């Protein structure tokens, strides 16, 4: 094992990886609302589920990060929705990723923020 391989492995463990997170969040969303239509009485439990499952999945990876997961579900009605983030952190180790998902009747936007914990 060379030292550069070691470094690669360490980096993969400690540096935020938005692609991996994107994939697992999409699966969570699909699992909770895939194939359903917007339903006012269920939307509370949907957002809570998506956020819980995503966070649990992230924490299970055992990486040294603090996480914030945010999920918005909006009924499709022609109205606009915009979100923006501004962060003051260490750009070498911290990061965020946003997953957008939609079906015929609703939009779902999930944002994940990960902040490195000093080891």
């Amino acid at each position, binding site marked *: 094992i060379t030292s550069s391989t070691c470094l690669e492995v360490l980096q993969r463990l400690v540096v935020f990886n938005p692609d991996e997170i994107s994939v697992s969040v999409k699966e969570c969303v699909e699992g909770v609302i895939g194939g359903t239509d917007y339903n006012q009485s269920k939307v*509370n439990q949907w957002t809570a589920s998506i956020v819980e499952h995503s966070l649990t999945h992230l924490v299970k990876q055992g990486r040294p990060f603090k996480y*914030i997961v945010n999920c918005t579900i909006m009924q499709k009605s022609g109205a606009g929705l915009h979100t923006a983030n501004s962060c003051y952190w260490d750009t070498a180790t911290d990061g965020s990723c946003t997953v957008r998902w939609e079906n015929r009747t609703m939009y779902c936007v999930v944002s994940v923020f990960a902040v490195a914990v000093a080891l």
Partner: protein
Amino acid sequence: MGESDTYHIRPNHQQKFRPAVVKECIREIVREQLSGVQYNPEEVLELTRSLADSVKDKVKNSGFDKYKLVVQVVIGEQRGQGVKMSSRCFWDADTDSYAEDVFMNASSILVPRSLPGLCPEAVLTPCLHS
């Protein structure tokens, strides 16, 4: 022989994150930038970004410069649709926290949330129903 350095790993009492102070910062900025403004699809993108940056700068300069901050702003047009937002966070409850504010006028709903902490926090969201 050498000097010993003191490193502060946790904030002391004066520097502890104060949600009330941060909420007031958020409210001032929102009032300044959004009074009398109508939802305009061309301008709202820039408005959301500039609001997020302004809130971040203001909170940073209000005595929380030792904290990492995450500010999120959501602006939605009011057209009678249903919207629900939720968040969860995994952080150090001793040092980390959040503050939020909601602004509504006839055409839009704005939720700026600021999560500071040695680690940023998650903001727990209010339910926005039209």
